[in-house]
């Protein structure tokens, strides 16, 4: 049987783990093998040292530094696991598996691209933005202080919104998109209500769109069927549950059923 061989969990050296904003950090770690293989829109599993918290924390790849053999992740410090990661220091190791998932399809990119990100849904779009050719408009929203803007600005025009109005437009990224009637091939990642709005907008304007979804995961590599989302199909029920970790996390907007 011809099978691609993969390594499972590996301990990777941490290069840096610095705050980007309140409760948001950028973790850079060394893994030439992962940096070689990774594509924009894929994610990795991070594992906690605390043996009470056994489940993987899926975190998207923010930047791929192939030459340096490093991956950059940006994560929000929310619960027990991500707060544990926040204490990791350079020179220590973090346990990682990946890259996982399908990633964005760059074949879909056109002369005009519209990238839409909300909160920690923005970092997973950075590597994609770096690789898009053509004219790229990037609409992103944050709870409060924006981050990664300088890096995004090297890839296209960046339009910012904040929920508290402290920078840019008050509201979320979809408000910018709607107000300006922006068009292009859409790539989006963010909270589910925002993705549902992107889906509706893309359908109304007949724009191709790819959405990167989030769901709670048991394994991250396809074996437990824990991480499903409803996808339209020809069955009697009109949908089936597909795995976010393996069939996604990126889905064509038209096939996803938000309910």
């Amino acid at each position, binding site marked *: 049987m011809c099978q*691609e061989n993969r390594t499972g969990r590996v301990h990777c050296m941490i290069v840096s783990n610095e705050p980007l904003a309140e409760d948001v950090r950028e973790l850079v770690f060394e893994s030439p093998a992962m940096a070689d293989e990774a594509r924009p829109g894929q994610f990795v599993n991070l594992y906690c040292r605390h043996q009470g918290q056994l489940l993987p924390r899926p975190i998207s790849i923010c930047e791929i530094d192939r030459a340096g053999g490093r991956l950059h992740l940006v994560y929000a410090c929310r619960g027990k696991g991500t707060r544990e990661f926040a204490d990791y220091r350079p020179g220590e190791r973090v346990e990682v598996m990946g890259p996982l998932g399908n990633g964005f399809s760059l074949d879909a990119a056109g002369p005009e691209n519209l990238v839409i990100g909300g909160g920690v849904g923005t970092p997973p779009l950075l590597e994609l933005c770096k690789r898009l050719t053509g004219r790229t408009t990037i609409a992103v929203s944050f709870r409060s202080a924006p981050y990664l803007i300088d890096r995004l600005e090297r890839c296209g025009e960046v339009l910012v919104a904040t929920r508290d109005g402290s920078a840019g437009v008050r509201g979320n990224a979809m408000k910018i998109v709607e107000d300006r009637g922006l068009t292009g091939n859409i790539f989006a990642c963010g909270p589910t209500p925002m993705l549902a709005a992107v889906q509706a907008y893309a359908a109304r304007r007949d724009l191709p769109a790819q959405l990167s979804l989030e769901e709670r995961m048991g394994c991250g*590599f396809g074996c437990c069927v824990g991480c499903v989302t409803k996808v339209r199909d020809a069955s009697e029920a009109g949908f089936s549950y597909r795995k976010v970790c393996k069939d996604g996390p990126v889905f064509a907007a038209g096939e996803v059923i938000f309910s």
Partner: protein
Amino acid sequence: MNLGVNIAGVELKNPIMTASGTFGSGKDFAPYVDLNRIGCVVVKGVASTPWPGNRPPRIAEAYGGIINAVGLQNPGVDAFCQDDIPFLRGFDTRIAVNIAGRTIDEYVEVAERLATADVDLLELNISCPNVKEGGVAFGVDPAMAEAVTRAVKAVAGQPLIVKLSPNVTDIAAIARAAERGGADAVSLINTLLGARIDVRRRAFVLSTKQGGLSGPAVKPVAVRMVYEVARAVDLPVIGMGGIMTGEDAAEFLMAGANAVAVGTANLLNPTATMDILDGLVAFMEETGVDDVNDLVGVVE
């Protein structure tokens, strides 16, 4: 060193099996492990027709374990026979098919369909709710457990393992009922019912409110139950529940299991089966054990 074990007349090259629902039918693991080194692959539960499974969220973390509410999503026995059996037969390992059903007739239908299929063992998951008896799990009532075992055994083309539910007051009584019904072996434990509440959202984490707890958190319960069942019946016993290391596997063997299954550990680490097998071999070397069968039931 001998690692071979015999379960109801079927020779396994080693006592490491996979626990149903945590290994798919092995395809997702083939890039990480050599499936030829696994004693027996127990595939995810299959039903007579495709089951859609539960709405998400299906997974919650619990201290030292996980709670799942996958709801036995599966493509049905026909798709299984077409896709999964030919894949697994490409490897030198045994195949056990885990059967799910909502009525005795549904279980029987799957076993009939598999009677002529190229698989080595059947495993009857009696933790499923019986829709004709108000959704009570078959496995919590000795009479129902015996009846479903007898009906499936009557049509089975392979030796029948009955997989016991731990959500009972007297698991030995259910094991004896399965034995009366004609079971060739028993396996245990399935998941323990549990729930998690997100206190910030004031809501259950899982869409189904409750789900099945598994992983290291359940291991002491599982070891106790394997010990009780091994003494209660004259059948081979397959032990599982939170096995993460070779020494955990040895613990189940010592409690009376003839083979062990690795479940949640597969989700957490795709090479878990290999690590546990290597760990068991290292433990045997270290403690001077030549035959893995010599570990079985050594505690009084």
